[in-house]
């Protein structure tokens, strides 16, 4: 039986990269918008 760990590693890797990139984009965009609003505190 072929184990195909390469495909498994690629799948988990791609998912991790996609989700981390989205979370980082959300955090950066939120910080940028908050900085543009004078009455909002940054987190």
């Amino acid at each position: 039986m072929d184990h195909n760990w390469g495909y498994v590693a690629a799948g988990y890797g791609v998912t991790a990269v996609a989700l981390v990139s989205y979370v980082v984009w959300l955090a950066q965009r939120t910080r940028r918008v908050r900085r543009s609003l004078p009455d909002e505190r940054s987190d």
Partner: protein
Amino acid sequence: VTTIIKQRLFAIATLTGLVITAVLALWVAPPDAQQGDAQRLMYLHVPTIWLAYLAFGITAFASLLWLFPRTRHATWDLLAGASAEVGVVFTGITLVIGSLWGRPVWGTWWEWDARLTTTAILFFLYLGYLALRRTGATVDERGTRCAIAALIAFADVPVNYLSVTWWQTLHQQGTVFNDKMTVEITGTMAFTLVFAVGAFTLLYAYLVIRRLQLAQLEEGLEERELQLAIAERVRAERAEQVVSA
């Protein structure tokens, strides 16, 4: 401050859930008797598409609430957009994982099979919906236009779900929900799948809350920029009047 602490605790719980999912899926669950370790991709593939269905369902429900004059509120429109965006991220991951799983198991990266095709259609429909949200219009016009588009796009969700029963092409029938309603997964594998669905549900909730907060802030920014532009215009007009007098 309490909200920030709550959000951080939520983030930690989500991250812990995802790490445990990875440990269960990659080390604890046994390899499949026929597919070997490639089947471990199921613990990502199934939760991401189920959560995408949920995301698009919430988009449709929020859109309905927007369309009814009695329940119309800006939050429903923003929630619809936030949920759709997270749904698109999950659908994109489903497609990539499916392709990586299909190559060793089916011998092909892609096939114009009913399930695969309707998933790709789902992805592009909601990508179009997100593009529509960026078109210029008043809040009311944009909200109504997008709510109708979201309801039309949602029609593909049941078609996608039932495609394996209706057409029976390359993609297998549901492991948990199929036409015979026989669960084809048991023991550690079933536990891992259920745990993964729980962890991804937390992730979905976390991402939608963060995206909704961002959308509300962006709306505040737009309003502020509009007020500044109006104030600038009024100042310019007054200055012109003073010069002409």
